[in-house]
């Protein structure tokens, strides 16, 4: 096996768990707080909707992950939904979408 390929494998091997660990518990809690308090300004503190649509598991069941991630990262032109990529990474949004699907989105108080 060429040495460079080995390096790549090793790098991937190390990088994958690192990616999952990247979201510290503290950051996860920050994201859940942001979801409730700031997303909640339009979608409701309990995500039952407001000026923006409801985001409970049943409401987003038919929308694929990629579509939800895109809307959160890039916003929805022509509507009040802003792009959040200025303060949340794609990895973090993917994690948030996973939590939205479970409906377990309460932050540690």
């Amino acid at each position, binding site marked *: 096996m060429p040495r460079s390929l080995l390096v790549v494998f090793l790098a991937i091997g190390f990088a994958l768990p690192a990616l999952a660990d990247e979201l510290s518990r503290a950051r996860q809690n920050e994201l859940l707080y942001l979801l409730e308090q700031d997303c*909640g300004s339009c979608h409701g*503190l*309990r995500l039952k*909707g*407001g*000026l923006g649509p409801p985001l409970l598991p049943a409401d987003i069941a038919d929308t694929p992950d990629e579509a939800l991630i895109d809307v959160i990262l890039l916003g929805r032109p*022509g509507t*009040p939904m802003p792009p959040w990529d200025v303060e949340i990474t794609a990895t973090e949004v993917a994690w948030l979408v996973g939590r939205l699907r479970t409906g377990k989105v309460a932050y540690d108080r």
Partner: protein
Amino acid sequence: MTGNPARAAVLICLIGLAAALLAACTHAPRATGDLGVVIERAAGRLVVIETTGSTILTRVPGLGDTSHASVVYSRDERFAYVFGRDGGLTKVDILRGRVVGRVMQGGNSVGGAISQDGRLVAVANYEPGGVRVFDAQTLAQIADIPAVAADGSTSKVIGLVDAPGNRFVFSLYDAGETWIADMADPAAPKLTKFTRIGRLPYDALITGNGRYYIAGLFGEDGLALLDLWNPEAGMRRILDGYGRGEEPLPVYKMPHLEGWAVAGDIAVLPAVGRHEVLLLDMATWREAGRVPVHGQPVFAVARPDGRHVWVNFAHPRNDTVQVIDLVSRKIVATLKPGKAVLHMEFTPRGERVWVSVRDEDKVVVYDTATLQPVAELPVEKPSGIFLTARAHKTGL
């Protein structure tokens, strides 16, 4: 003498009267003119406060989902009507600190208003889109006004206010319409509709004299104006193109049009998607200038004398409040009350302003002359602050 039964009876009566008076003193009747409430938005509670000593009197739980909750008052300033996000309309006796009535009137609501005569409470609903009107005494439903637009679509309702002549005025967010509901016959509101007022009206206000209704537009650079003294003229666009064709910034918190910041003929409005407040000349309805500010304004609220305007800002620049002097049109103070300032409410004569700081679980009271904090109260995730003086103001 002491043996005189008549005298003894009089003496006993006097002692009894004195005791009754003493008892009355220990339970002295309390007026409500210096009271108010703060929403604990996450806990679904009201905090009853008083502004003379800047203290908390009691807490009232059981209000459901109070995201974006707002409050209007009965004309005797004793009852607060709380409009919750979950469609709950709750009547709270702030003197006794308890809920005295609650109806789940819709699926998802955004605010409400009380009629000029104090008999009707109207609620603006997102779901089902429309306005429902209730008896202020009993909370029995009196009228239902579904927001079905000219094209047959249903719409969320925003910007509901009361207007003189026992009318309510509100706008249809999705459809871009403004309706007047004349409540002369409360069970059969007479509707006057204005269509095509502009794209996505997101909030509205009515001037203190109840004459002008102004809807802010999210979908366009401008506002829509209705002169209620001359509704036949229809709605007209004002401050059209205030963004000068520039792409607006993304908006992380919708601005609110509440109250009416006026100094002389100049009104102050938050610009959507811009780090500016707009100055509007109310004589000509033209722009009179703009003031660059710290972030995207959410509320621009005038001190009651109209000289200073206090402005708070959208996420993530929401740790700051700026004070604009409308004479010099300059920022005279940049304050840092704490993380996530959501609302500001002046005492009726303007010597203090109450500021809710959500992420630091506190309400800070500022002296408006020295611009220094003078009190701080622990309040869990505070949002709206509503003082009873609103009872006597059109549109609040």
